[in-house]
């Protein structure tokens, strides 16, 4: 154990995802030895992101305003909605340039053992968005892993009765992987070849 402030910093880093006790200690000592100006910039960036960045009131993508860039853009096709797990998946799909519709960010996937059921995700808000007749197709682009598949199963079953076209990205994506690691070409192809999610 180190004294007060140093140990506090190690503890804080240790709570970040993917950082074990050794890495936490290494990063804390890096901060200690680094230039004052560099570390002030880091602290400012963290404060700014917490102050300024919120989640879009409509799609839950990260946004600095009430509505995100994509929801505000009148050139986006408002009849097609792509459902993803996280904001970084929006970025992954945007990189493919295969999709011109809008998004809905669920905030994760259904994973009961981790305490996450449908109520913990933005699924009710998704249903609310589908109440008028604007949206004609929902593309489910959850991760190609087990939790993503199960979330897709749940959504497809729930949306079936609405009479909207429900599609799922085509296979070819790496099973067990994260959507964000799929390269643009593969992900683009998965969009082109999407198939009905209602069996």
């Amino acid at each position: 154990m180190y004294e007060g402030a140093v140990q506090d910093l190690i503890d804080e880093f240790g709570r970040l995802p993917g950082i074990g006790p050794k890495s936490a200690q290494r990063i804390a000592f890096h901060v200690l030895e680094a230039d004052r100006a560099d570390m002030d910039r880091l602290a400012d960036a963290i404060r700014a992101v917490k102050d300024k960045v919120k989640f879009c009131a409509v799609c839950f993508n990260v946004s600095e305003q009430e509505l995100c860039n994509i929801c505000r853009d009148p050139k986006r096709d408002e009849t097609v909605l792509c459902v993803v797990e996280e904001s970084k998946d929006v970025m992954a799909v945007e990189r493919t340039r295969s999709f011109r519709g809008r998004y809905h960010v669920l905030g994760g996937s259904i994973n009961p053992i981790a305490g996450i059921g449908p109520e913990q995700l933005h699924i009710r808000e998704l249903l609310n968005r589908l109440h008028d007749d604007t949206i004609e197709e929902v593309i489910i682009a959850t991760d190609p892993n087990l939790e993503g598949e199960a979330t897709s199963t749940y959504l497809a079953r729930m949306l079936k009765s609405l009479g909207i076209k429900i599609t799922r990205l085509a296979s070819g994506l790496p099973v067990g992987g994260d959507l964000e690691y799929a390269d643009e070409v593969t992900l683009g192809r998965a969009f082109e070849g999407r198939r009905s999610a209602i069996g």
Partner: protein
Amino acid sequence: MPRSSFASKSYRTPAIVLRTHKLGEADRIVVLLTPSHGQVRAVAKGVRRTSSRLGATLEPFMLVDAQLSTGRSLHVVTQAQIRAPYGQRLAADYRSYTAAHAMAETAERLTEDDVDAAAQYRLLHGAFAALARGEQDPSLILDSFLLRSVATAGWTPSFSGCVRCGAPGPHVAVNVPLGGVVCAACRPAGSLSPAPESIDLLDALLTGDWARAASSEAAARREAANIVSGYLQWHLERVVKSLKHVERA
């Protein structure tokens, strides 16, 4: 690093993937249940990347043959092949998927300490196989699994003879902390009086009498499920998080 003082050993084992966590950029921690090494926590490196073939193998609820090497705290999965792709089938049916979560979480909790993991492994394997076959109501498979896994851990309930004096049933009262039915003479305050059909269903689930369990009505299934969940939570002390997300008919 005093690496030389630690000799890593390699071993091969069948395993059921209980759960996975993301680790760092592209790795996962997988929690495995094995028949002879008990519960194993291992790192699977790079499995979230597109190039990984291990990723699809080490998904939750898969039955695999794994090659592992020992480590100080976490082991490392070096190879794995699928024996039965239960995960895929369970993800395609939402009720089975949520039931499988509750089973995996219970099995994880009951094998935290050194216990007879082989018996828990066999029970879970049987339950996942039954869910994947899709011939029974997933809720019945779940409740039967929960009762039998708690029994295997040493807390065997009874839904025929009185749990206190052994007087042969049928009895009409159930006492959750005592673990089953109690006769009129033994009945402590706070015992429940469920419908006789619910008690009969509990007995069928515990003894694996599927014909009798399948003939039960929805009301009995609901009441039995509440008693099973009460019994499970009583012995595990902490809440089984997945249970409240289980979708029942």
